[in-house]
């Protein structure tokens, strides 16, 4: 099943958080959501769609992301991050939403709070 051209979405409840984060640190909402996706994936923060507080809000589509950021479908396949019967896009949506929740919980959109990341990914904040 080809996934190209399929919309990438997240829980619209975190729209405001995404916009704040985007305004402060990024040039596009896609960059913002890719950052949220990376946090969700790294910290395995996945919010199942069933638990979303809002509707699905599109932030890009898989083909555009593949062209600019890489093939997350292959990446997921290769890392064997798979849930039986769940398309990669949906899995990505749940990771993005999980990442946005982390941003909200830790007020990363406010000046001076990015250091919180060090508490969760300490290996990335030290030079060996």
């Amino acid at each position, binding site marked *: 099943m080809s996934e190209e051209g399929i919309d990438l979405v997240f829980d619209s409840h975190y729209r405001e958080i995404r916009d704040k984060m985007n305004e402060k640190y990024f040039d596009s909402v896609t960059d913002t959501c890719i950052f949220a996706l990376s946090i969700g994936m790294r910290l395995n923060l996945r919010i199942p769609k069933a638990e979303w507080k809002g509707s699905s809000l599109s932030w890009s589509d898989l083909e555009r992301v593949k062209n600019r950021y*890489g093939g997350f479908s292959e*990446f997921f396949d*290769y890392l064997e991050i798979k849930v039986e019967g769940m398309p990669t896009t949906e899995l990505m949506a749940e990771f993005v939403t999980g990442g946005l929740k982390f941003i909200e919980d830790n007020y990363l959109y406010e*000046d001076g709070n990015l250091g919180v*990341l060090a508490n969760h990914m300490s290996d990335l*904040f030290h030079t060996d």
Partner: protein
Amino acid sequence: MIIEKISLRNWQGYYGSKHEFLFGSEKPSSIVYGKNTFGKTAFWEAIEFALYGRVRKRKQPNKFKPFMSNQSSDKPLLNTDAYNEGNSDFAVEIFFSHEEGHYRLLRRYHPKFTNKKAEKLSDLILQLELENLQDDTGDRFEKNPNRWINENILPERLSKFFLFDAERLEEYEELMDSDRVDVRLKEDIENIIRSPILKNGAHVFKNLANRYYRDYDSEYAQNLKNQKERKRHQELTEEIESLKKARTELERQLKSWKDKINSKQNWLEENDKSKEASLQIKHIKAELTSNEGNISSCRDDLKSIMTNAWRVILQDQVNSANQKLEKEILLQEKMTKRIGVIEEEIRDKMDEIAGKPCSHCGAKRHEPDDNERVTLRNSISNLKEEQKELTDKSKFPTNDDIWKVRNALRPMSLPERANLESLSNKEKRLSGLLKTKFDLNSRLEDAEKLIGEDKDRDIQKALSDLKSYQGNRDELIDKIGGMKAKIAGKSDELKGITLSSTEKKSVKMERLQFADQLCTTLSDLFTGTLETYREKMRKGVEQRASEIFLSISNNSENYEGLRINDDFTVNILNKKDYMDAGSGAQSLVMAYSVIDALAQCSGIEFPMVIDTPGRGLGVENLNNVYNHFLKNNPQVIFLPNDLELDPEHGDKTFGKFVGTTYELSKVEGDRTKVISRIKE
């Protein structure tokens, strides 16, 4: 003074020592009846003697009765019988109360020598005792009784107003005739109303004022010896005074300019703060601009880091995916290589079965036997199976797969391992920059508060004003300096003139001038007070005397009263509004009136002792006199003769007013006997 008891010894007609007159404590007034020559006047004179030590002669008030019979032909004070018997001891003793005290006064003369008859006054010794009967301190006797009596009881000169003898009426008749006013009597009246205190005061101070004025004049003349010096002194004093006033005015103006200058300087100091603030704002704004640039740059850096942060975050997972792919590719290459080796081994084994030379070295090989051929064929079979298995396995990943995966992971991959330490550092720097920005904004706000509108224009005006004010101030300082020099010069000149005289005189002259002014003021005060006081007393005596006169006179319906003139001469005012001197009887009534009024107005407490009260008075007038005096005076002792008041009638009519009455009679020739009639 209230007389309580009188004792007489060998006193005139009173022979011996048992003659006593007691006076009631509740009603101290009394009547002593007696025919002429029976001893009434002697009784009256006993009081005068006890108090003053001598007895005035009737008709000759400036002469005194002799003590003993050989001194003159007049009746002596010492009883003649006693004298003739050689007893020259005579005495009068009075017990009296005065101002809540009780006293005993003894005036006694007795012979100096026991072996010699006293024939003249120098042969007698005076025993004078004034004893305070209530004094328990042991010092009961007054050291100087005469002075004490004059000062505390009644001066002798004024006794005529209390010890009254109608037979001596001529002593008072001057009162009726303004042409014959006896200076001494007038003085006595002045004394009794106590105006001399004020008069003397005025006189003393007037004399003192004159003396101080003369001294001042003398001092003044001595100190300022010539008119030229005085004039120059005056000129210099005035010039210095004028200069000082002008200087004071200039100093006032100077102070005003200094105040203005201070005010401007204060304002400019505040304005300097504004200027400083303005510079600060400029500096802060520059810092803010720089700070904003740094923040912006820092934010850009952060954005840049954040844009790629996802790759760093996922780098381990991406690397893991890449490594997995590389492992698969390596395994595939190994399998392909093995497949080639297996193909060569199969070919070699088949050449061996066929007996062909070694394809690598060309060496001949021996012909395999059957067993060997079976083994070789089994080995070839196994190799082919392995080859087939490897060939199946090595089909994946296909080149297409590898390409896809590589393409998928390439954008995610980082050339080498990265971290987010720069993110942390940048954010710390951003926080610092933001804090700096906040601080700068606070400082900017504070500085901006200090600056108002149009400050520069105001500062320029203030500076211009200040310069103008300072110019005015300097000009004034110069002027004042010049004026001070002038004053100093004139002061030096003045000192040269006055140093030897004026300075020395100043204190003394000021004292003399002050003393002169003070004494003049006091003299004027006493004089003014004297006139007021004297007139008040004159009116008081006039009113009181008029009342008494109308009360005593039996013809009061024809009279308005008495007029007492400024010189204390007296006229009777009748209702036809003319004045007359009155008859002899009226003169006596008038004398009673004036004397009683004077006695009452004087405030002196002394008994009225009236001898032969009715000379020339009719019965009605006389009764009025008795009634008036007995009713209105604290103590009156009447000494009437048998024609003036019959003892029986007297006791019956006036007994209610008196505590005691006495009747004098004669025994054994010329000796007086005292008979007590009404006893307390």
